[in-house]
Every structure is written in C-alpha cells, then in structure tokens.
C-alpha cells in the first residue's frame, strides 16, 4: 500500500512539477508570481478536450495543439499586461496578473458554463502489476510525457545560449541588453516555454482525473506555485523536486489519516522547509555582501 501511495503521489507530483516549471521560469526572469499561470493551465486542458471531442484528434496532436495555443496565449499576456509594467514596482505586475487571471476565469465560465466537462477517454484503461504496485497506463503516459518535457527544458536552459541569456536578463535588463541580448525576445521565450508546459500539464491532468473545469487553475496553480517555492523559486530542478515532494507528501498525508488537513499539509511542509532553508530546497542562499 505504501509503495502504491508513493506512486500515486509521484504521478500527482509530476503534474504539479509541470505547472511549477512555468512559475519558476517566469519568476526567475522577471520576479513575477504569474498568477495567470493557473488559468493558462486550465485553458490548455480545455483546448485538449476541444481537440479530442470536436476535432477527433489523438493524444499527441491534442497535446501539441494545447501547447501551441497556450504558448501564444502566454506570450500575448506578457506583452499586454506585464511588459508595460516591467520597470515599475514589484507588486504592479502581480496585481495585473491577478486581473488577467480573474478575466480569463470568468471568460471561460461565460463561454463554457461553470460545470466541469468530462475528458473523453483517449487512453484505454489498463492496469499493469509490477510487484505489489498497480500502475495504470495513464500514469505511465503522464510520467513519460512529463519527464521528457522536463529533460528537454533542462537541456535548453543549461546548455543552450538562451538559458544563460535568461539568467542575465533576470538580473538586469539594461546590462543584459548591453551584452547584445534581445531582452524582449528572451522574456517572450520564457513565457512561451512556461505556458506550453502548463498546457501539457493541463491536458495530462484532464486525462488523469477525467475532468476539466474553469476553476481547476486556482488550486492547481496555488499548489504548483507552492511546489516552485519549496524547490527554490527560480530553480528548474527545484521546481521538479518541489512538485514531486509535494505530490508525495500530500498523498501520504491523506493515506496516513490526515485527510481532513490535506490542504494544510502542503503548506505546513512549505513553512517548515522555508524556516530551515529560507530560499527553498535547491534555491541558492542569498548572499549578503555590502
């Protein structure tokens, strides 16, 4: 039972991680808690449903379409709502992000109604037994897709030039520009990647839990954000670790009988971790040099 619960936790954690990556990347570069990110994830899930039901597409095509749509959406939001605020106080874009989030959520409620929509089965139910653990096909697919995407991302950020440009831009736009970096493009790129990962998360979660709803972005977004901070916000491996950690901790917490306090588990853990590691599990400690 324990190993089974851990597997459940890892699957849940993998989806948290996918969303958390977007938070962490955007935070890493413009120090913005992008509250609209949860809504992008929600839109991604709906695009997935649309592709599967209306356009009768398979998983891969639907996933791809959702990622593309959200890529455009994320980049547009940045351009319209955050870019004009790039040089103002830290909290200004945060408020703008909350505004965007309210807008998208109510728009979606209006378009498609407040009811959740079922996600049609795109993957046949199948259970495999590995020792004492039962793993479903859906779980396997989620784990494969999530880890592939994360590896790809890690590669881009670590080894491709733009990754370094992201770090430079995150510190100082002007000086980054003086290095020949097109800061606007780098930021757009960050939103593009982050948003498409969230979309992938949305589709996978939709398949895993069989449902999507206009409100699904709120709590998932919050949890994922929590995961990003837990791992050390700004750190990509941190987001992955934080997501998995949170998913497993939450699942085990429920299994251990703390189900009443499920939502509190994640946050209690978070506070405890922060007290001992004030910048998260993998966050770089803040250097105090004067």
């Amino acid at each position, binding site marked *: 039972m324990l190993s089974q619960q851990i597997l459940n936790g890892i699957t849940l954690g993998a989806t948290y991680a996918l969303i958390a990556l977007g938070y962490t990347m955007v935070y890493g570069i413009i120090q913005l808690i992008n509250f609209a990110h949860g809504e992008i994830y929600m839109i991604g899930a709906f695009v997935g449903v649309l592709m599967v039901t209306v356009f009768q597409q398979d998983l891969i095509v639907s996933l791809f379409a959702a990622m593309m749509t959200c890529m455009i959406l994320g980049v547009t939001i940045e351009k319209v709502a955050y870019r004009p605020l790039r040089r103002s106080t830290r909290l200004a874009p945060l408020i703008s992000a909350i505004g965007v989030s309210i807008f998208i959520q109510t728009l979606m409620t209006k378009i498609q109604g407040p009811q959740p929509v079922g996600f049609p089965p795109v993957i046949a139910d199948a259970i495999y037994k590995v020792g004492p653990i039962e793993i479903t096909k859906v779980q396997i697919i989620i784990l494969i897709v999530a880890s592939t995407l994360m590896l790809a991302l890690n590669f881009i950020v670590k080894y491709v030039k733009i990754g370094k440009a992201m770090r430079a831009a995150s510190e*100082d736009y002007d000086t*980054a520009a003086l*290095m*020949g970096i097109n*800061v606007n493009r780098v930021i757009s790129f960050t939103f593009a990647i982050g948003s498409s990962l969230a979309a992938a998360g949305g589709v996978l979660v939709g398949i895993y839990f069989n449902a999507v709803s206009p409100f699904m972005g709120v709590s998932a977004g919050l949890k994922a954000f929590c995961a990003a901070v837990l791992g050390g916000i700004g750190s990509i491996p941190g987001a992955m670790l934080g997501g998995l950690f949170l998913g497993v901790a939450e699942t085990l917490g429920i299994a251990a009988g703390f189900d009443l306090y499920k939502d509190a588990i994640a946050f209690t853990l978070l506070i405890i971790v922060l007290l001992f590691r004030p910048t998260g599990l993998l966050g770089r400690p803040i250097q105090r040099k004067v």
Partner: protein
Amino acid sequence: MLLEVKDLHVSYGAIRALKGVSCGVKEGEIVALIGANGAGKTTTLRTISGLIRPISGDITYKGKSLIKMPPHQIVSQGISQVPEGRRVFTRMTVLENLEMGAYIRNDKANVKADIKKVFARFPRLEERKAQLAGTLSGGEQQMLAMGRALMSQPTVLLMDEPSMGLAPMLVQEIFSIIKEINQAGTTILLVEQNAHMALSIASRAYVLETGEVVLAGQASDLAKDPEVQKAYLGE
C-alpha cells in the same frame, strides 16, 4: 567621424539631462568626456547604447543612424559599453559573466582564448573565477566589468568611469590597458572623473556642464586650460 552625436536632447520626466549635446569619435581615437557630477556624461553614453530614447537629435555610426535601433542590435554593430557602477551579473560566477560578454560571438575556441587573455590582464579574476560576482569586492567587480566588455571584441568601446573604486596601482594599470586596446584597433569614448589621467591618454576631449558641451578640443590643450585645471584637475 566613426560615431557622431548631433544635438542630442534627453530628459527624465521633468528633468532635462541633455540640452543639445554634440560630440564625436574618429576611428582609432581615444576621446574623453569629462564634467562634474550630474553633467550628463552617463546619460550620453546610455543614449548612444540605445538604453534611453532621446527627445530629439541624432546618433550616427559609420553614417548610419542608431536612433531607432534597440540596444542589442547596437551591440551587434560593434559598440560595447562598460557601464557606470559596474553592473556585473551578481548571481552569476566570474567566468559566466565573461561568457555573457561574448554573447553575440559564435567562435567558441576564440572566446576561450580571449577569456585567458582577460585572466592574464586581471589575475585577481582568475583566482575568483568560480565566485559569484555579487560577492566580489568593489574593485574586483570593476575589473570584471572591464573584462566583460572586452569579450565582445568591440569596434567602439564606451567606458563610464572605469577607474572608480580602483586602487592606485590598478588605476594606472587600467589606463595603460585602455591605451593598449586602443592601439590594437578599438576606438574609445571615455567618461572619467579622474580627468587628469583621462586627458593624459586621450587625443581629444569634451567638457560637459549641466547637459551642454562647454569646451572641446585637443586633450593636451584642455589639460592646460586654467578653467579645466581648477574645476576638474584640482590644481
């Protein structure tokens, strides 16, 4: 003129920082820009690099206007800057900072060789190469900012107070490096509080006061000018 600034007007909100500045650098020259605090020296350099949009006026490089160009494109034209206040990437290591300087270059092998050259010039940086730049001492950061600008192999190098916060020996060192890279073919526009040193290596100089050029001429002539001596050389 290789780089020419014509009748530049810049303001920060209500504050008018430049009121019609004109100056220029010929190929191969070192030109010094001196003036009191707040005269507009930094503003001039930042406008050339495209970080500030002027109200009016023109900046041309090899006859082409830079006014509408975004900063990263200006860099790829060959104009680099050592910004005021060092502005190193504090959360990146010394080595990574240098690599950022070479961002627009694609010749990996030569970049490596150039990093070696920078280390040879500033051995202190090599000792600290894995340290986060934010924890360097003030002077070490200044060396890093200088090394980083050299990494882009600029045609024109704009330098904003490169000697600030450096130990005396290093000040001399920095000026001889500036001369050296100039001799190797880089054109230099130098902003300095240390007018004494600046005038000694520059061929020409401009004196800026409250957003206007009040004096211009050969550096050696200006060094002898009594007004300049009194105000900027402290003699």
